[in-house]
C-alpha cells in the first residue's frame, strides 16, 4: 500500500522496517510531519536515531516501507556538520545558500552571523574554530539556506547552555514560520515538540 499525501505534509514515512546485523531497529514505523510541526526522535545510543534520520533524508534505504518527501527542500545536519574545514565560515555559508538555491542577502547573512555570535570568526577557517563554534556555523548555514524541512541529528552536541537555548529558539522560529523539523536527541533539550518518536520503546 502506498503512503498518501496528507494536507501540508512535508514528509511521510510509511511502514518503515529496518534491521542491521540481524537486529531490528524499527518495524512498522509510520510518521507524517506537517508544516509547522516539530517532531523529536528520542532514544538511547544505538537505538537507530541517526539511521532513521538518514532514511528520512534519503541517504539510507529502509528494508521495506517508503519515505516520501514533499518539502521543497530538505536540510540535513548530522554529526559531520557539512562544513568544509578549509573554507571560512562565510565561504561555507555562501556555498550552502547556493546549493539550496536560496537568495543570498548580505544583510541577512550579517544578521544571522550576529545572532549566532559568529561575527568575529566569520572570516576564520572552520578548522580553526572550536567544536561549539563549528556547530553554530552549521546552524547558521542551515538557517540561511531556507530549507523547508530540517532533519537535525543531535544538534545540541558541542553547544553550551546559551547555544542550546539559541538552537531551541531557532528551531521553534523555523516551525512557526511554516517549516518543520525532525530532531533526534538522546538528551532532554528544551524543545517544545508537537510529537515524540521514542525509539527506546520500539
Amino acid at each position, binding site marked *: 500500500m502506498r503512503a498518501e499525501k496528507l494536507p501540508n505534509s512535508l514528509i511521510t514515512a510509511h511502514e518503515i522496517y529496518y534491521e542491521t546485523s540481524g537486529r531490528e531497529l524499527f518495524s512498522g514505523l509510520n510518521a507524517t510531519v506537517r508544516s509547522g510541526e516539530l517532531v523529536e526522535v528520542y532514544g538511547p545510543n544505538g537505538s537507530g536515531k541517526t539511521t532513521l534520520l538518514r532514511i528520512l533524508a534519503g541517504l*539510507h534505504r529502509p528494508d521495506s516501507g517508503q519515505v516520501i518527501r514533499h518539502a521543497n527542500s530538505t536540510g540535513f545536519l548530522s554529526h559531520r556538520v557539512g562544513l568544509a*574545514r578549509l*573554507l571560512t565560515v562565510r565561504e561555507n555559508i555562501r556555498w550552502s545558500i547556493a546549493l539550496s538555491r536560496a537568495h543570498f542577502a548580505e544583510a541577512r547573512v550579517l544578521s544571522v552571523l550576529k545572532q549566532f555570535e559568529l561575527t568575529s570568526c566569520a572570516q576564520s577557517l572552520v578548522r580553526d574554530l572550536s567544536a561549539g563554534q563549528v556547530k553554530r556555523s552549521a546552524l547558521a548555514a542551515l538557517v540561511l539556506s531556507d530549507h523547508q524541512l530540517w532533519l537535525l541529528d543531535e544538534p545540541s552536541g558541542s553547544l553550551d547552555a546559551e547555544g542550546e537555548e539559541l538552537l531551541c529558539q531557532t528551531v521553534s522560529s523555523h516551525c512557526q514560520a511554516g517549516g518543520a523539523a525532525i530532531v533526534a536527541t538522546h538528551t532532554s533539550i528544551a524543545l517544545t515538540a508537537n510529537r515524540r518518536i521514542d525509539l527506546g520503546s520500539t
Partner: protein
Amino acid sequence: MKVFLATLRRDLLVAIRTGSETLNPLVFLVLVGVIFALVLGNDHAARELTGIPVVWTTALFANMLALEGLFRREQDEGTLATILVANESALPATVAKLIAHWLLTGLPISVLAPLIGLGFGLSFETLGILSGTLLIGTPILTLVGAIGAALVVGLGRGGVLLTLLVLPLFVPVLLLGIGTCQQFQFNAEYIPPLLGLLAILSGAITAIPISIAPILRFSQDQ
C-alpha cells in the same frame, strides 16, 4: 548554474588551501618521468621508443593518485550528504566537482607531460600530439575514475579497491593514447586510435556525470 559555479569555486579554493596534497600527483609525474629519462641515459633510440609509453603511463598513475580524494574529504566533512540531500542540486554539484578535479589534475598533467617528453628527445610535433591525446584522455580518466571513487567512498579507506576497480577500465584509454602518439611518431595512420579516444570521451561525457550522484547515494547506504 549557480550551484555549479559555487561548487566549482569552492573545490578550487579548497584545493589551493590544501597545497601539497593537490601538487602530489604532479610531483609524482615529474619525478617518475625524470628518473626514467635519466636511467635510459644516452641511448637515444631507446628514449625515443619508450618516451610516449612512459609519459602516458606515468600520467595515468598520477591521475589515479588524486582519485581517492575526489569525494573523500566531502564524505568525512559531511558535505557529500548535504549535496545528496539537496536533490536537484546534486547533479550540477557533482559535475562541478568532476570539472574541478580535472582542472587540478588532468589539465596540469597534460601541460606538464610534454615537458617531460622533452627529456626523452621527442620531436615538437610528437610532443604536441602527446599533449593533445592527454587533453582528451585525462577527462576520461577523471570520469571513469569518478565511478570507482563514488563506489568506494562509503567503505572508508578504499584505495586498493579503487585501483582494482578502475585500472582495467583505464587500459583501453592508455592503449589508444599511446597508440595515437606512436602512430604519429612513426608516420603511420594515427586517426583511427584518435577517433577511438574521442568516441570514449563523448560516451563518458554523455553517460557518466548523470550517474555519479545515484552511485554516491548508493554508496552512502553501505
